[in-house]
């Protein structure tokens, strides 16, 4: 067990190191922040002065090792675009907003997908099944920014039920969470449906029926409880897509999270912040997967020796 753990931790660290190189290279690739910060009429002297001030005149490898050395101490440098703030501070300030929205999006998609999946399984190959499938697939068939804008117009402007944008109470989260979460519904619903089909067919459920348990209880309690494990496994994969989705959805809903920060940082070529965002996104993803793998290995001994 320890050996397996050690190996996974080592692999994760290696991955983070590789990602640090990529993050660094990506930010270098995007060009100099001096160009994006300077106004149109600034001359070469101003550009030179800032290049020096921000340490961009040093050789690339030297810049990387400085960056790596600082990063190991948890310091990703000062933001260039947001003068006076640390890159990591900016990310951490906005991360809760993104995680909050992402978490809520997962809850919303679960709330839609699981009942639809169960109904689709119980009424397999009926219009219910087909209808459920279409509802689920619709989320995967619309550009999410378009869905977001349409939702704003229907629910905020015409019906005035919900606020248009920004971060605030629970009501502020509903529209962006639907726009973000609907995409996941199809996959989640499919998993639920197929898991339910399998479970409904099992001896265990047959036994429950024979014992005279009411059908709704058989389906929604006995079967679902056993089938739920399968779709739950899908959540680990969602972590990545939440960040990807956040970039677009946060723009539409003016949601002040890391997705919005990432766009601004890349457009502003704010190296430290771009690096901090990429490392944070990747770090969260890898950490979650490491935790999950560890726990999984703990629960299922076969894994360790594979």
């Amino acid at each position, binding site marked *: 067990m320890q050996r397996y753990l050690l190996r996974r931790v080592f692999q994760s660290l290696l991955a983070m190191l590789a990602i640090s190189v990529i993050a660094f290279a990506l930010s270098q690739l*995007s060009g100099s922040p001096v160009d994006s910060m300077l106004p149109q009429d600034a001359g070469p002297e101003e550009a030179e002065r800032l290049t020096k001030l921000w340490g961009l005149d040093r050789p690339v490898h030297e810049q990387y090792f400085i960056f790596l050395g600082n990063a190991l101490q948890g310091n990703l440098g000062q933001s260039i675009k947001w003068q006076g703030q640390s890159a990591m501070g900016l990310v951490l300030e906005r991360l809760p907003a993104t995680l909050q929205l992402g978490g809520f999006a997962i809850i919303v998609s679960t709330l839609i997908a699981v009942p639809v999946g169960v109904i689709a399984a119980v009424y397999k190959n009926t219009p219910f099944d087909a209808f459920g499938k279409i509802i689920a697939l619709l989320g995967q068939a619309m550009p999410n920014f378009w869905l977001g804008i349409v939702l704003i117009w229907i629910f905020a402007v015409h019906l005035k039920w919900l606020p248009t944008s920004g971060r605030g109470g629970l009501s502020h989260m509903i529209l962006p969470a639907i726009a973000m979460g609907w995409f996941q519904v199809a996959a989640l619903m499919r998993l639920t449906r197929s898991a339910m089909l399998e479970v409904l067919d099992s001896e265990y459920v047959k036994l429950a029926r024979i014992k005279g348990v009411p059908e709704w209880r058989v389906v929604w309690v006995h079967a679902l409880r056993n089938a739920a494990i399968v779709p739950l496994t899908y959540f680990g994969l969602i972590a990545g897509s939440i960040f990807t989705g956040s970039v677009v959805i946060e723009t539409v809903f003016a949601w002040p999270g890391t997705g919005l920060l990432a766009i601004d940082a890349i457009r502003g070529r704010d190296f430290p912040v771009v690096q901090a965002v990429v490392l944070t996104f990747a770090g969260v993803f890898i950490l979650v997967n490491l935790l999950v793998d560890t726990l999984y290995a703990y629960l299922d001994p076969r894994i360790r020796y594979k």
Partner: protein
Amino acid sequence: MTDTTQPTPEQAVSRSKLGVVAQLRSLPMVPVFILVFILIVPALAADWIAPHNPITGRIPDRLQPPVFFGGTWEYPLGTDRLGRDILSRIMHGAKVSLSVSIVGIIFGGVLGTILGLIAGYFRGWADAIIMRLVDITMALPSILLALVLAVSVGPSFQTVIAVVVFVLWALYARQVRGEVLSIRERDFVARARVSGASHLRIIFRHILPNAANTIVVLATLQVGSVILLEAGLSFLGVGIPKPTPAWGLMVADGRQLIVSAWWIAFFPGLAITLTVLALNLLGDWMRDRLDPKMKGL
């Protein structure tokens, strides 16, 4: 992923070969119909059937509504800000959407499949390296890569393809590797190995054909997500450059006029939705026929 319920590979291959006619007859007609008329025919024949030029419009005819909303048959789906015919742009857009999908999926799919085959077949350090690369790729938000690429070299058809490939290869590599892991344990692979077949021969004669179904199903399902990815990139201003008619770009471009000229974004959006829906239904159908164990994706 368990593989207890699947047919033996010989069965699977023979069934799909023998039953082509029967298979085709059970094709879900609605999705196929949609695909043919929205995606394939326009993509192939846009130059001949589109009523107007998709790039240059007539400015005096700008922002005409669709035909049953006060417009004329001259522009059945209305016109955009520059007086370009939406219908013609959608037809030409099919070509763009289809070519982005096909090129992206071919490159991403081939790369991912090869790496997946190597990882699954040889195991060992090759597997370890490739799978770590997969992990790293999945941990990096693809959209940020797209933004950086666009900022550094300017958005273009090539950058869009690059992002598509980046997103897809890891998916394929994972899926194919899983498939190969189970196939290589089968009797016929062991028999081939005993008879002294080379690794290449085993991979291409025995393993790849049996993994082909998975690859095809995955590709069908991915066309939809590539079209959506293109739309997302256009929204962020890093997609296919103007004035090329691309569906995602058209939706992104018209999204702000949702009140006064809703048709600019609505019709290309509808084309995307119908196409992706149809592809998914078709993909589901293919999965049920070809690869019933691939329930997950």
